[in-house]
């Protein structure tokens, strides 16, 4: 297998964007190409992740992107895996470069939904659940994660205020990220007094619906070395699955796909969670970040809230979690999020993260899942 590197990254701002889905996909893609210092003709294949292109009248985005980059003859793959689409797409590109099929690949993720309104997004996003048992019976995504939160509070020494601290931390980080959707300092009281969406989760426990696109350029080590410029290495890549419905899981407070993916990625990288300097994890709701931090192996089961309480996951804490602001503050354009996490790791490990830089960081991890974690990918990166 070839060693695989990330050579460049680009992102639009996340938030409510006016440009079309194909426009923002291209803006991020061109950003990544410029960041890598390559020409579009160096790209041998494109991997484009998106969930609700139908909302902006463009599905099958791959060929549209490749055509507008002047490389319409190159193969592309349009990928949907709910909120985990970006990391799954990254994995497919990684596997193909590692296998030697392509020396350079483009991975771009995108979502454009804010123009549809809350009811449309709440309803259509619920189609990503195991609909027969969940969406059909009136559960929205906030509702599904709220059920995990209630189970967690019932099983462990945790309170709603603990979860609120996750939102406060991620908003603090997002304030330092010029491309974040919600750049606003908030307090635990703000979270606790925000409107209840699905008890026990309140509005400020929830990430926003966002538009946005992110892109990265992957290449083999030979290309990266010959090309020059900054790059980082992919040390480990893992994927896993979970029962699609919450009811089928052994524990309601553990996401099996994260554990499986993280174990595979750590094994491949030959390191342990203690070696990781920072992580971009899937905090679609505050409870999710706590569960993720345990399932990845940063903290024991049930101890994730203590870590939050003690500030261990703050920027430049014991392990910086979501220095970008995470889904909570940076925003969650669902098809883009997994790619945006990799873009953040690239920026962090190549000295481009500005005020939110994790000091002396050498190793970063990304974890991104679809739905309530029915599918997941974990990647580990190292500076060169």
């Amino acid at each position, binding site marked *: 297998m070839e060693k695989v590197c990330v050579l460049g990254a680009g992102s639009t701002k996340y938030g409510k964007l006016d440009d079309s889905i194909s426009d923002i996909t291209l803006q991020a893609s061109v950003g990544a190409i410029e960041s890598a210092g390559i020409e579009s003709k160096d790209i041998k294949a494109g991997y484009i992740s998106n969930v609700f292109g139908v909302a902006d009248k463009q599905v099958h985005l791959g060929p549209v992107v490749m055509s507008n980059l002047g490389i319409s003859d190159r193969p592309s793959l349009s990928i949907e895996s709910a909120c985990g689409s970006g990391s799954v797409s990254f994995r497919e590109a990684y596997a193909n470069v590692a296998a030697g099929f392509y020396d350079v690949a483009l991975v771009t993720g995108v979502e454009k939904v804010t123009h549809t309104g*809350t*009811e*449309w997004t*709440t*309803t259509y996003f*619920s189609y990503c659940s195991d609909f*027969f*048992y*969940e*969406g*059909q*019976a*009136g*559960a*929205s995504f*906030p*509702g*599904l994660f*709220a*059920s*995990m939160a*209630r*189970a967690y509070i*019932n099983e462990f020494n945790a309170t709603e205020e603990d979860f609120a601290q996750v939102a406060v931390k991620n908003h603090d980080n997002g304030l330092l990220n010029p491309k974040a959707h919600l750049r606003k300092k908030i307090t635990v009281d703000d979270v606790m007094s925000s*409107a*209840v*969406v*699905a*008890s*026990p*989760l309140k509005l400020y426990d929830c990430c926003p619906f966002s538009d946005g696109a992110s892109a990265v350029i992957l290449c083999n080590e030979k290309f990266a070395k010959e090309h020059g410029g900054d790059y980082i290495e992919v040390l480990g890549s893992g994927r896993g699955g979970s029962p699609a*419905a*919450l*009811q*089928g899981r052994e524990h*309601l407070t553990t996401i099996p796909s994260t554990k499986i993916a993280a174990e595979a990625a750590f094994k491949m990288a030959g390191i342990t969670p203690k070696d990781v300097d920072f992580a971009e994890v899937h905090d679609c709701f505050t409870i999710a970040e706590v569960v993720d931090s345990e399932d990845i192996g940063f903290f024991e089961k049930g101890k994730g809230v203590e870590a939050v309480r003690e500030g261990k996951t703050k920027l430049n804490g014991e392990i910086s979690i979501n220095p970008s602001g995470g889904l909570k503050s940076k925003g969650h354009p669902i098809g883009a999020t997994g790619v945006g996490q990799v873009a953040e790791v690239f920026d962090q490990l190549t000295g481009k993260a500005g005020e939110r830089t994790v000091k002396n960081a050498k190793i970063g991890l990304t974890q991104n899942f679809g739905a309530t974690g029915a599918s997941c990918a974990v990647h580990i990166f190292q500076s060169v």
Partner: protein
Amino acid sequence: MSEKQDFIEHAKGGKILAHKCVNCEDLSLATVYFCKKCGKRGFEDFVLEGHGKAETYTIMTVPPSGFEKYAPYAWVVLSIDNSDLRISGFLANISKPEDLPIGTALKVVGFDDRGIVLEKL
């Protein structure tokens, strides 16, 4: 009748249609086609009473479309009595956590456009 339709008909009668693996006796909901434990295909029907305890739930105040008229309501994960299975469903008229302590006994009473419909036992 499809597996799922058969499952729905049982839910309408307050029952849960499970499948017992003929190889390892592991119990699955009837919507599963292969045994999650041993991987074999080959089940016999096993009908459970649709009674159980609320293991976790949410109270939905911002509902998906079609559910506006019911809000607030609960979506509940129920552990089914006399089995290690769970099922999820819709429970009307729940507006605050005090209305539904964890462990509350519930029963399946039907299946309609709200999926599996639950009531307090």
